[in-house]
């Protein structure tokens, strides 16, 4: 060990991970941020570009779709019932198709789950293990409720005639929201894994960072929904 100041104590927090090999050097953290957390932030940066591309694709595809409906392209008009197409053509947007009050409730549920997630992290880092279990369970349940809502929404839309292989709107809508839903589902699985650890008594204050990192993922998914809710559902 050299006398150059290295956050040795900090390294203890995350050394129970893959980078133990550098433990005796202490230089595992030139930035003062743990490897795992830094890596996860980088991953989220990459995810931003992924969802950026998906949202751009949605905007462009739906714009083209509406243009074709307004122009009366018979191939496009044949893909959904006439009354829906008439409404889209009349309003010049697909938003009349959405059930905004329902989706607002979904958004509220997802925002709520972000709050419970952050409270779970707070609880675990303060050693409040009962609170950890409660808040983690609440987060997983709220996430599951959101996903159930999405399944319901997809079912309704499908029955109304919006098919994945039908037209551009269907392809783009199901792909974008489906990608988001898949992310939420993966998040729920990670929360369940955390809960199992918590009930086995393995999730204690020293592992607060694990909770924080899964929380990062969860909040990121929430942030993406903030974007999708405004851009897809509210703005025509």
């Amino acid at each position, binding site marked *: 060990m050299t006398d*150059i*100041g*290295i*956050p040795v*104590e*900090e390294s*203890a*927090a*995350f050394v129970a991970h893959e980078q133990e090999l550098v433990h005796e050097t202490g230089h595992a*953290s*030139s*930035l*003062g*941020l743990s490897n795992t*957390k830094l890596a996860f*932030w980088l991953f989220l*940066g990459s995810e*931003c*570009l992924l969802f*950026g*591309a998906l*949202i*751009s694709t949605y*905007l*462009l595809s739906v*714009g083209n779709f509406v243009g074709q409906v307004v122009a009366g392209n018979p191939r496009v008009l044949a893909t959904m019932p006439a009354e829906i197409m008439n409404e889209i053509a009349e309003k010049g947007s697909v938003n009349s198709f959405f059930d*905004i*009050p329902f989706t*607002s409730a979904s*958004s*509220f549920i997802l*925002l709520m789950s*972000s*709050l419970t*997630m*952050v*409270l779970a992290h*707070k609880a675990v*880092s*303060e*050693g409040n293990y009962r609170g950890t279990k409660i808040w983690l369970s609440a987060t997983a349940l709220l996430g599951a409720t959101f996903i159930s809502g999405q399944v319901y929404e997809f079912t309704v839309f499908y029955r109304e005639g919006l098919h994945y292989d039908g037209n551009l709107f269907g392809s783009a809508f199901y792909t974008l929201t489906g990608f988001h839903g898949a992310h939420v589902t993966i998040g729920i699985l990670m929360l369940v894994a955390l809960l199992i650890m918590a009930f086995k008594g393995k999730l204690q*204050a*020293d592992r*607060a*960072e694990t909770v*924080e990192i899964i*929380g*990062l993922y969860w*909040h*990121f998914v*929430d*942030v993406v929904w*903030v*974007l999708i*809710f*405004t*851009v897809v559902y*509210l*703005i*025509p």
Partner: protein
Amino acid sequence: MTHTDMAHTAHDTDTHHGHDHAAHPTEKQYWMVFVILVLFTAVEVAWSFMGFEGAVLVVPLLVMMTIKFFLVAGAFMHLYFDLKILNGRLFTWAFFGAILLAGAVYAAVIASFRFNI
């Protein structure tokens, strides 16, 4: 920025050792953030039903969306606090530079279609 500086900063703001929780928000503050987020969402939905059109409709919605984005990222994701740990203007700039870059790239793609310029 020397290692010594970083070590101190990291020590001061790192919260994973039970010796320093002051840096992260309190439970009450988290609830406050949540309430603000819900309020903004309610205003967004209400605004979309007001019958506005064009920029009057879109611009406030986008502004509220951006505020919500940074509230979640800054408070819930501790971005505000983690950037303090990094304590380097370089990284702060790189981070916001990357967000701007991503936004600008996709905005340019959409603009080139929408306006055919």
